[in-house]
């Protein structure tokens, strides 16, 4: 399977994603430069990686969403292509309108960089079907703007459709503010679009693909091929 990783000025998880896709999962991985629009139809997965695209100027993701590759990505997503946005990638997908809501400053105002626990809330999507419903995963986060917010109508819709794929939780899977690292609404760590082919999440599955790095829980998420 071919898998692409978009590279913006300021991306810094592009190499981690590339390594996970190529070396861990054995996919034919390729970098996709932000300034070059292209036909993505041959790709089985496109990752919008973490980092600080355009220095987070104005708002995280606000500038990156207008990059030329984003037109290609929107067409690809509209045709059902699998898109995974991680961290800054999640922020970019929200800014681009591929996912509802927005990511705001962590409630603590601190940059949080540590392993967290998330619970699989919907195991019937292309990204999560290799997990058990309710399974608790350990995946690292590294962000300052990860508090997901949206209006009440959107939140009701996300809940009703099962679009909330991951929630922050305790090691045993309990939802508790003490285990919510950024104050995210309804403990949301990751959401999908209505078609379940676009996933945005703050935790970094590409950094949790090998036990040597502390956890391999993210590997199955990327194993879409």
């Amino acid at each position, binding site marked *: 399977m071919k898998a692409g990783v978009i590279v913006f000025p300021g991306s810094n998880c592009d190499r981690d994603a590339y390594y996970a896709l190529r070396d861990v999962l054995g996919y034919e991985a390729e970098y996709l430069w932000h300034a070059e629009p292209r036909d993505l139809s041959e790709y089985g997965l496109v990752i919008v990686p973490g980092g600080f695209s355009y220095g987070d100027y*104005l708002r995280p993701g606000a500038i990156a969403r*207008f990059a030329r590759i984003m037109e290609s990505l929107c067409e690809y997503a509209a045709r059902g292509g699998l898109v995974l946005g991680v961290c800054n990638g999640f922020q970019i997908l929200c800014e681009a309108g591929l996912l509802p809501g*927005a990511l*705001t400053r962590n*409630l*603590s*105002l601190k940059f949080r960089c540590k392993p967290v626990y998330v619970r699989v809330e919907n195991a019937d999507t292309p990204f999560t079907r290799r997990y058990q419903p309710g399974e608790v995963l350990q995946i690292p986060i590294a962000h300052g703007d990860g508090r997901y*917010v949206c209006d009440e109508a959107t939140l009701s819709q996300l809940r009703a459709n099962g679009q909330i794929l991951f929630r922050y939780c305790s090691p045993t899977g309990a939802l508790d503010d003490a285990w919510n690292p950024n104050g995210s609404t309804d403990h949301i760590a990751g959401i999908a679009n209505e078609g379940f082919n676009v996933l945005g999440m703050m935790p970094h599955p590409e950094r949790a693909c090998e036990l040597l790095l502390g956890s391999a829980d993210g590997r199955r998420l990327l194993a879409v091929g």
Partner: protein
Amino acid sequence: MPKAKVYITLKPALLDAQGRVLQSALQQLGFESVQGVRVGKYLEVELAPNGDPHEQVEAMCQKLLANPVIEQYRYEIEP
């Protein structure tokens, strides 16, 4: 040269984490009258004299400068 002064703030319904900390800091410094603080952004946009500046700035705010999901904006235009 017309200049637009653009003010962007979080929507009132949204918790402003920075504003809350500043409110607490001000109160601790003895400014007990402080009832709330909201942190926003202020931008100055210089424009060429042709075209309708209001129309242009409105479009800029909608397309890029503000995120309508979380932010509200207002602007003044100096001729």
